[in-house]
């Protein structure tokens, strides 16, 4: 008789989740921050403005086992927006290697808002980092593929390896981004002027708008973050989404540049690699332990989800997750995934 270890694993994971005390911790956290009604839903394209400010989901996935904890609207779909940026950066690194990518985009935080247009490195004309729009457009230009369709498919396949299912692009959001993306188009042409983009700049911009319009849920994002926390391997499917040598590249730029112009405050308070998007998503990676995703559309003045920031800060402080934390947190033992000893390192091969 043939057995189905993956099905047994899924069943056992579900039961473990149901009986874990962390479930109620997450539920309490969700209830507490549901009351937090600050912030405004992004409206720079009409499609984003239709988001319900009450949508609020928190999902946490284990790096070692993919065990998923959810509270609230974790199945609500939304466009990934800027959270796509580190992942496409990872694909560019796989396509060209660190050296070649660093010719096109730097890793220096700017302290600027997400849509800052003008700052390019003076000598090299490189955008400062892959998390600002200019850097993300330069990164999208690096994705290999003979045709536009092939490049898009490679990006979707890549996200599929992180999520465990291949995502789709929201056509209406893509069309809207494309129609109203004058600032990004200007960035593209400025980069072209400096010789940092190939001549098919419109195709590059399309790919960038498409990657931002990929539909995900909080659950998907938690699995993507858990995959990074697991050294680049999706903990449920066992599929490698990113060559292990580049995991540190993604986490480094997320740590220093992931939260727009509040990256410093975030690094200080939360102390974890993270990335937010204007649709209200935030992902946080706790290397070796777990991936966290929060979805809540109202944004603060930096463009980060208000509830997303609050939940991640609370989780980090409650469980002592700050990467430089040396004081033990009282609640640390409640986490289903203990601190790996010695420090977990991904040794898997590509």
């Amino acid at each position: 008789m043939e057995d189905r270890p993956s099905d047994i694993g899924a069943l056992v994971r579900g039961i473990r989740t149901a009986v874990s005390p962390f479930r109620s911790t997450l539920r309490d956290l969700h209830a507490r921050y549901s009351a937090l009604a600050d912030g405004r839903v992004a409206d720079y394209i009409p499609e984003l403005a239709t988001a319900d400010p009450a949508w609020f989901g928190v999902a946490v996935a284990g790096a070692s086992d993919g065990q998923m904890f959810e509270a609230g609207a974790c199945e609500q779909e939304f466009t990934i927006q800027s959270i796509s940026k580190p992942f496409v950066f990872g694909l560019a690194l796989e396509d060209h290697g660190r050296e070649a990518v660093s010719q096109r985009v730097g890793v220096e935080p700017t302290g600027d808002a997400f849509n800052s247009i003008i700052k390019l490195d003076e000598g090299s004309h490189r955008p400062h980092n892959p998390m600002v729009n200019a850097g993300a457009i330069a990164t999208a230009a690096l994705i290999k593929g003979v045709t536009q369709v092939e490049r898009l498919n490679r990006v979707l396949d890549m996200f599929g390896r992180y999520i465990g299912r291949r995502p789709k692009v929201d056509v209406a959001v893509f069309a809207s981004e494309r129609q109203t993306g004058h600032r990004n188009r200007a960035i593209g042409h400025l980069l072209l002027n400096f010789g940092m983009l190939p001549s098919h700049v419109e195709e590059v911009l399309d790919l960038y708008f498409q990657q931002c319009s990929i539909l995900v849920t909080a659950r998907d994002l938690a699995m993507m973050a858990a995959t990074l926390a697991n050294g680049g391997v999706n903990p449920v499917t066992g599929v490698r989404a990113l060559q292990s040598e580049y995991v540190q590249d993604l986490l480094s730029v997320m740590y220093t540049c992931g939260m727009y112009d509040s990256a410093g405050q975030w690094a200080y308070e939360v102390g974890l690699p993270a990335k937010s998007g204007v649709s209200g998503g935030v992902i946080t990676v706790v290397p070796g332990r777990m991936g966290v995703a929060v979805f809540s559309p109202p944004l603060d003045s930096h463009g980060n989800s208000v509830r997303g920031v609050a939940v991640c800060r609370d989780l980090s402080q409650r469980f002592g997750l700050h990467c430089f934390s040396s004081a033990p947190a009282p609640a640390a033992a409640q986490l289903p995934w203990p601190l790996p000893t010695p420090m977990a390192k991904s040794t898997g091969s590509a």
Partner: protein
Amino acid sequence: MTRIVSIHSYRGGTGKSNLAANLATSLARAGKRVGVIDTDIQSPGIHVLFGLPPDQISRTLNDFLWGNCQMTAAAYDRTAVIGPCTGSVHLVPSSIKAGDIARIVKHGFDVALLNDGFQQLSQALGLDFLLVDTHPGVNEETLLSIAVSDTLLLVVRPDRQDFEGTAVTVDLARQLDVQDANIVLNKVLPGMDRSVLQARAEAAFDLPVLAILPLCEGLLSLGSEGIFGLTSPDDPYAVGVSAVADRLMR
């Protein structure tokens, strides 16, 4: 702290409910506060042993799972049934209404709620023990009950089908890290060699055999009209169950 004891068997008719009811009686008579919950939502029945007629049941486990009430509102104090004792027995029945069973079968329920219910009941009633009478076979609520148990009692008859199926449950229980899993051999016929049976079970499951209970004619002829140990405390079946209760209290 409440000790959660799940009583499970791979197949039906192994004597789970009778074991649960008789164990609850022994524990309550020893002064313990005991909860009994019927998680066999598809085919409930233990309320009969505790003399709880359907017309006296208002709230059930189903109501809790559908968010209609707190778990404690579905708990019935059945201490009077077992006579004067220093402990108590609190029963949470499942609904015996066809429509309620159909709704569960058709739509299922969030199995995680069951765990919330166990915790709620244990705390609100200050239970020493919570006995969980499960649905036979493998399903989500059974696995959840197994996963939260401090002690698991797997009821097995000396029967090849029971042995083969129980091996599946044991495998899953291991994956759920159950610490104290035990085999209870039940309905053992007179003339069967107990030591051979015990050795066979231990070899098959790699688990301790906690008790070997005889096929009990008195229990059969009682026909679920009551709790056998109350009327025949000296019968080998009742003595065997008491020994299991003693082991749980150690």
